[in-house]
C-alpha cells in the first residue's frame, strides 16, 4: 500500500471509509490515495455503495415502522411493573420482622430478649442442620465422570433458542435408559427410583449419547432432577438472551451442575429448600 504500483485492497479502503483504521494506518492510506487515481476512483465507488445501501435499507423498512408513542408507553408501563414487583418483594421480606416486633413489644422487654435469643438459637440450629443435609445430598448427586463426562452435538445458537420449552430439558428413549442402567449397574427392581437425565441438556446442545446420561435418584434429595431442570432452563434463557455463551454454559453444567446452580442462581441452596428455611426465619435474619 506504500507504492502507487501496489494498489490498496478493497478491505483497506472499506476500513478507511468506516474509520476503523488506526491514525497511522489511515494516514498511510490517505497518502496513497492522494497519489493514486485508480484507488481514489475505487474508494469513491465503495463509499457511494455504502451510502446507497444504507439509504435503501432505511427507506425500505422505515415505511413499516409504527409510531413510537404506543411502544414507548407500553415499555414504560412494563418497567414500572417490574420495579413495583421488586419493591413489593422487598416489603414482603421485612413484613415478618415488623409484625414480630409489634408482638414482642406487647410481651415486655424480658420476654422479648428471651424470644429473640430462642429464635436465634433455633434458627441457627435449623440452618446448620439444613446445611449439613445439603452437604450430604451433594454427595452422589453428580454423575460418575468416567462414565458420564458429557457430550454435545454441533448446534447453532439459533437452533437451541428455537427449541420448544419441553425440548429444553429433554426425554430419553427407553432403550438408551436401559443401557445407562446397565452401565451404572442398577438392577431393574430399582430403576423406578431414578430418572435417566442428561448431564448437558438438549436445550444447551447436549447430545442423546450414553456419555451424556446418568441415573439421577428421585428419593427426597435437595439436589435432585427437578432442581437441575430449573438450572437448565435458566442457562438456556441466559444463552438465548445473549448473556452467556453456549460453550461456557455447557462447560459449567458438565463440570459440576451444583456449583453451576449456585453460581447462576446466586444461592448456596436449591431455591425451594431456601424458601422452606426462610419460612422458619420470622425475624428475617440474613441467611
Amino acid at each position, binding site marked *: 500500500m506504500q507504492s502507487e504500483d501496489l494498489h490498496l485492497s*478493497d478491505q483497506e479502503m472499506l476500513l478507511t471509509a468506516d474509520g476503523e483504521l488506526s491514525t497511522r494506518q489511515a494516514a498511510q492510506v490517505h497518502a496513497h490515495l492522494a497519489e493514486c487515481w485508480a484507488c481514489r476512483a475505487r474508494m469513491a465507488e465503495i463509499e457511494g455503495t455504502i451510502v446507497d445501501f444504507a439509504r435503501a435499507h432505511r427507506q425500505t423498512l422505515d415505511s413499516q415502522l409504527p409510531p413510537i408513542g404506543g411502544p414507548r408507553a407500553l415499555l414504560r408501563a412494563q418497567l414500572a411493573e417490574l420495579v413495583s414487583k421488586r419493591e413489593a418483594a422487598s416489603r414482603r421480606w421485612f413484613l415478618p420482622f415488623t409484625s414480630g416486633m409489634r408482638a414482642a413489644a406487647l410481651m415486655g422487654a424480658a420476654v422479648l430478649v428471651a424470644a429473640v435469643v430462642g429464635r436465634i438459637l433455633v434458627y441457627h440450629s435449623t440452618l446448620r442442620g439444613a446445611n449439613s443435609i445439603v452437604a450430604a445430598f451433594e454427595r452422589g448427586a453428580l454423575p460418575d465422570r468416567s462414565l458420564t463426562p458429557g457430550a454435545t452435538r454441533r448446534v447453532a*445458537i439459533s437452533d437451541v433458542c428455537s427449541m420448544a420449552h419441553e425440548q429444553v430439558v429433554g426425554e430419553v428413549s427407553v432403550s438408551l435408559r436401559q443401557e445407562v442402567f446397565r452401565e451404572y449397574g442398577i438392577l431393574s427392581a430399582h430403576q423406578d427410583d431414578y430418572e435417566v437425565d442428561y448431564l448437558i441438556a438438549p436445550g444447551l446442545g447436549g447430545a442423546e449419547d450414553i456419555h451424556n446420561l446418568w441415573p439421577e435418584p428421585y428419593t427426597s434429595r435437595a439436589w435432585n432432577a427437578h432442581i437441575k431442570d430449573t438450572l437448565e432452563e435458566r442457562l438456556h434463557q441466559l444463552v438465548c438472551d445473549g448473556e452467556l455463551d453456549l460453550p461456557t454454559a455447557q462447560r459449567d453444567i458438565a463440570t459440576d451442575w451444583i456449583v453451576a446452580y449456585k453460581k447462576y442462581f446466586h444461592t448456596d441452596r436449591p431455591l425451594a429448600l431456601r424458601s422452606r428455611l426462610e419460612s422458619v426465619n420470622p425475624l428475617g435474619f440474613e441467611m
Partner: protein
Amino acid sequence: MSPKDSIDGLPFPTVGDAAFSKTPSEIERQVMEFFEQFRDPLLRYALSFGIPVHDAEEVIQEVFLSLFRHLQLRRSRKNLRGWIFRVAHNLALKQLYANQRSHAKTTSNRTIAEEQFDPSPDPEEQLSSAQRRHRLLAVVHALPEADQGCLRLRAEGLRYREIAAALGMSLGAVSISLTRSLARLIRADGR
C-alpha cells in the same frame, strides 16, 4: 451525537462507579433513553429477519426489558450497543423460527415491488431510484445470513466491534464479510 459515541457518551457509570447506588427508577430512565435512541434501528434490524411488525415490536420490548434486568444486576456496560443488538438478533431469530414452526408466518416483508417509492417529484427519477434500490436489496437477500447481518448492522451505524459482539464474530471476520458484500453490491450495481 455521532453513532460512534452515542453509547459511550451516555451517562452510564462503569463498573465500580459510585453511581451504582442508583434506584430502579434511575435505571428506568436510562432504559427509556436507550429506547428513544435505538428503538428504530433495532426495529428495522428485527424486521430485516422477515418477522411481522407486531412480532418485531414484541422483540424490541423484550430487548429493553432485558436491558433493564442487565443494568439492574449491574452487569457490564462495556459495548452496550453491541450487547443490545445481539439480544435483538437472538430474539428475532427465535421468533422467526417459532413462526416458521407454527406456520403462522405472515407476509410481513412487503416484496420489493410493493415498496414505496422515494418522494421525489420526478417520476423518472422515482422509477430509477426504486429500480436501483430493488437491485441492491436483491443482492443483499442473496448473501449468506452472516453477511446480511453485518451489512444491515453497518447500515444502522454500528462500529465493527459492535457488529462483532452482536453477531458473535471476530473483528477480522466482520471486515472480510463487509468487504465481500460491498464488492458484490458494486458489481451488481454495474459501477
